[in-house]
């Protein structure tokens, strides 16, 4: 049967969310002939709709439904209602993302074995490893057209990159380049080359950056096997007396509650909404929420150890010209406990426009110390820190029954405290970032606090043993065979790398597994 599918069609795979995980999974399954209904809370926006304006674009694309925060992280103070900066739209946060696409390092799949016991950290090895993931990474890199892989050329260096590179080389860093980016350095896969417009976070109007919104989603739909229902907010996953999931309840674009039957349900709403859905689906059979016999649903929330370093020079840089993320230093990504922490971090250039710089450089600050920094905006260069943070059981997403969303559903509270390892790593990275810019003559540097989380991971983690996590090595719930988690929430640990390439590789692999098991009649 071809799309659109009937609400009572119980042969379909229902995917919740159409971002990096869900959008790719939907297309991959559709290409294999599997019938898919993808339910997406947000609307559909394409390159012609994207806006080269930071706040206007934020209003168009960002997830703004209420959330609450707690814990000692500075985001809870600066942006108490906005713990994460993520997208609510067809294509999910791949509309916003910068495109940095790097593989995990081999040892990062085995964090517990490599780092040993770290007090207060709930470390665990992934049930998969680098060798198992290598072919899936290659498929993901080909899909995304990642530069500096598969014979694809790197992007040219922008002003922001050149300052960063010169400083990094002066410090003796060796692994310095314009990054492995899901941004075309030449025409590729029917998408044009990057025009260096500099609004990658606002949606690429040229389509030069990969996003599920205008690649995987329409291609899946073209097969006739995929129906994407936009403005469809899933409220609950339903199950039968045997404990298998049978479908989902969602609010459609008119706010009417609908029920879609399903053979398999895949949850891909990003690391806040995915556990929220499992918890909001509690029943008499599963009083603690679906797939939660381990008690790990919502726990081990990771957001990468981040921060930024901006610097002002005595001459213009104009960092906003060109790709938002324009290069990387990888030398510090290694595991080297002599630095005073386990795991490693990447340094990646970043630029913000004046409106976002005013909001994020030092939230809450005022007076001349702050404004004189912005007076130097034209002469500013910037970088972002992304490092492995420690999973902690108490860093978690819970239901906040005091606050309801527009559908009357309890929202999530996001609790996060920095682990001492995170703090030590961030301070090391601040020092190195400052040194890079001082090596090329910065007159003033700004170690800038973390923004609302863009990388949200770990809240339905993968584990070998059902006792330690929520899903197995296929992203399949330990407790419920026809329930899958398909987004970044399945990460066992975060590694130092930006997560999306790994989310995409896991989704391609999961599609392969689901189609095979369906073929065998096992699902």
């Amino acid at each position, binding site marked *: 049967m071809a799309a659109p599918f009937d609400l009572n069609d119980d042969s379909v795979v229902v995917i919740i969310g159409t971002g990096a995980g869900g959008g790719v999974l939907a297309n991959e399954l559709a290409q294999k002939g599997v019938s898919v209904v993808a339910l997406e809370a947000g609307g559909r926006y394409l390159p012609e709709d994207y806006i*080269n*304006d*930071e*706040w206007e674009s934020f209003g168009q694309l960002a997830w703004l439904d209420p959330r609450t925060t707690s814990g000692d992280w500075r985001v809870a103070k600066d942006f108490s209602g906005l713990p994460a900066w993520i997208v609510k739209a067809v294509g999910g946060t791949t509309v916003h993302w910068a495109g940095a696409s790097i593989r995990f390092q081999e040892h990062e799949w085995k964090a517990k074995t490599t780092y040993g016991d770290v007090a207060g950290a709930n470390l665990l090895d992934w049930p998969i490893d680098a060798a198992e993931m290598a072919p899936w990474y290659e498929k993901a890199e080909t899909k995304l057209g990642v530069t500096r892989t598969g014979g694809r050329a790197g992007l*040219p*260096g*922008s*002003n922001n990159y*050149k*300052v960063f590179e*010169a400083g990094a080389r002066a410090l003796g860093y060796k692994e310095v380049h314009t990054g492995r980016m899901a941004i075309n350095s030449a025409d590729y896969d029917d998408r044009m080359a*990057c*025009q*260096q*417009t*500099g*609004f990658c976070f606002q949606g690429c*109007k*040229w389509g030069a950056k990969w996003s599920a919104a205008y690649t995987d989603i329409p291609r899946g739909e073209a097969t006739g096997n995929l129906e994407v229902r936009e403005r469809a907010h899933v409220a609950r996953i339903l199950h039968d007396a045997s404990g298998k999931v049978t479908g989902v309840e969602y609010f459609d674009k008119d706010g009417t509650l609908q029920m879609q039957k399903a053979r398999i349900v895949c949850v891909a709403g990003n690391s806040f909404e995915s556990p929220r859905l499992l918890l909001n689906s509690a029943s008499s059979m599963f009083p603690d929420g679906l797939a939660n016999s381990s008690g790990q649903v919502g726990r081990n929330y990771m957001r990468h150890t981040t921060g930024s370093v901006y610097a002002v020079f005595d*001459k*213009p*840089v*104009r960092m*906003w*010209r*060109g790709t938002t993320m324009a290069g990387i230093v990888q030398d510090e990504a290694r595991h080297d406990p002599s630095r005073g922490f386990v795991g490693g971090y990447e340094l990646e250039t970043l630029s913000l*426009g*004046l*409106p976002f*710089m*005013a*909001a994020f450089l030092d939230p*809450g600050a*005022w*007076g*001349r110390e*702050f*404004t004189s920094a*912005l*007076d130097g*905006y*034209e002469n500013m260069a910037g970088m972002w820190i992304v490092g492995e943070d420690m999973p902690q059981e108490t860093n978690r997403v819970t239901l906040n029954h005091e606050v309801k969303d527009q559908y009357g559903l309890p929202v999530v509270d996001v609790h996060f405290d920095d682990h001492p390892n995170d703090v030590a790593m961030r301070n090391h990275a601040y020092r190195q970032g400052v040194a890079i810019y001082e090596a*090329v003559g910065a007159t003033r540097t700004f170690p800038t606090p973390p923004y609302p989380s863009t990388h949200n991971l770990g809240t339905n983690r993968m584990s070998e043993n059902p006792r330690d996590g929520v899903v197995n090595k296929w992203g399949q719930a330990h407790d419920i065979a026809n329930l899958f988690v398909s987004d970044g929430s399945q990460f066992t640990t975060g590694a130092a790398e930006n997560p999306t390439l790994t989310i995409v590789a896991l989704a391609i692999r999961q599609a392969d597994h689901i189609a095979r098991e369906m073929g065998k009649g096992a699902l």
Partner: protein
Amino acid sequence: MSQHQSPRGLTRRELLKSGVAAGAAFVVGSGFVLHSREAWAMETKALAPATMATLIQMARDIYPHDRVPDQYYAIAVKGYDTSEAAPAIEAGVAALDAAAQGMGHASYLATPWERDRVDILRSMEGGPFFQTIRGGLVTGLYNNKEVWPIFGYEGESYSEGGYINRGFDDISWL
């Protein structure tokens, strides 16, 4: 806000004559604030003109940029000139003036040195009035496209074909 033109058809000279000097740059009269140096005037509807003048000065003192004219601070706070917002703003400005008087000045606007005005603001920075004004300025001031060129920021670039041929890599001093 009626920028660059006098309210109610009065000439600038007539307005100047009917108003009273407030602070270094403002003249306030009934229903208007006039900026003597920048030659613009704005009508006020719900707020007392002296309150609006104080608010503009307060905005500048929170985010002082010497290259940004008062006009843009005025635009950033003019949204408070509504009947809904006015009571809280009048009360906030009254508290600001009281704080100024507590430090030996006639009023906030009549406090000549920025350093002293900043001290007055510091005494109020934990309160909701200060935080509302400061928070609103983050977008009210910096998200005004007319302000961007003063900082060198070029804004939208898609319609110009991006920067691929317009200097994304033109740095010459490294």
